[in-house]
């Protein structure tokens, strides 16, 4: 790919998926300074990656793969000492006092963010892509898990979200 094409692909990617990248880094890094650094790393990684983009997959898949891989590597480096949980464990955990989410969207979003930040990859990737409204096939292509495994994870995510957010909102 020529340098002009690389720039053009990057511009297009940012115009279409820039907002999703902003949401993604919020879910991966709580510290604002480190979040800014992570977002910069993702943008640089994305621009560099487009030198090798030859339409092997859709641009959306390419962008999400690069962003999630860089973010997951960041989390792996940063969170070696912090305990992460799986979706299975999340289903079994009590709702917890930090998930008092019946009051307002800001708190609900904060609680959702806190919950996502406890997850390790690839569960975190799956839930974030689910929230971005991607279907199981698209998520499978990005994360590299079998579609069946992704479908199972989405089923669990739905159950966890319903239990943690819907029931409290209703009550």
């Amino acid at each position, binding site marked *: 790919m020529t340098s002009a094409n690389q*720039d053009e692909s*990057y*511009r297009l990617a*940012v115009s279409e998926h*820039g*907002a999703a990248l*902003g*949401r993604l*880094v*919020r879910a991966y890094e709580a510290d*604002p300074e480190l*979040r*800014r650094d992570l*977002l*910069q790393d993702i*943008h*640089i*990684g994305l*621009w*560099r*990656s487009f*030198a*090798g*983009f030859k339409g*092997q*997959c859709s641009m959306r898949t*390419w962008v999400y*793969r*690069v962003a*999630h*891989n*860089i973010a*997951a*590597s960041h989390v792996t480096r940063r969170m070696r000492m912090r305990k992460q949980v799986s979706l299975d464990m999340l289903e079994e955990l009590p709702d917890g006092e930090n998930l008092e989410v019946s009051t307002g*969207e800001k708190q*609900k*979003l904060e609680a*959702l963010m806190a919950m996502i930040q406890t997850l390790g*990859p*690839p569960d975190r*990737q799956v839930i974030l892509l*689910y*929230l*971005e*409204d991607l279907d199981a096939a698209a998520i499978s*292509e*990005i*994360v*590299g*898990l079998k579609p069946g495994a992704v479908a199972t994870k989405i089923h669990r995510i*739905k159950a966890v*979200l*319903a239990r943690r*957010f*819907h029931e409290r909102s209703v009550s």
Partner: protein
Amino acid sequence: MNDDIKTLWRNQQTEYAPMPLDEIRKRAGQFHSRVCWRNIREYAASAFLVCIFGFYIWLFPAPLMRLGSALIIVALLYVAWQLHRRGAAMALPAEASASAWTDYYRRELVRQRDALQSIWKWYLGPMVPGLVVFLLGAALQTPPAAHKQEWISITITFGIVVFGGVWALNAWGVRKLQRKIDELGG
């Protein structure tokens, strides 16, 4: 109801504006500069140590210490060449970051495991003969004759503890990485 959560998620405010393209190019260039500087630092460190041990050959009269110094110089040159040769393999190429996460992560883990596994062959191992000969030469040379046996024992024990410790840490690291690779099914 999950659609509400999705809507809430997608409507949230994000705080950072995208970086201008010129800034991206500049920072990508800085990344390459960092890699170049890291290599230069490693070559400079090797050159400095070659000078030091070259000085030892001239300074110390004991044949074993001189031989040890020469062996260490050869090892340092070999390590510098290996660093240069392996430089390209130190990081995955940029487009590799667009692999599916499981593939990307597996490749990264395999790369780290292989680097750790082979470090004895090209980094630590070549240093051992020179260091052993040099330390033995120093042990035979410096203390009074009556304590030579003890000094040699101490030197050998020290070498075994240090290199054994590094070996044990390496082996532990390799096992840990292999477990992660196995968990991914690779």
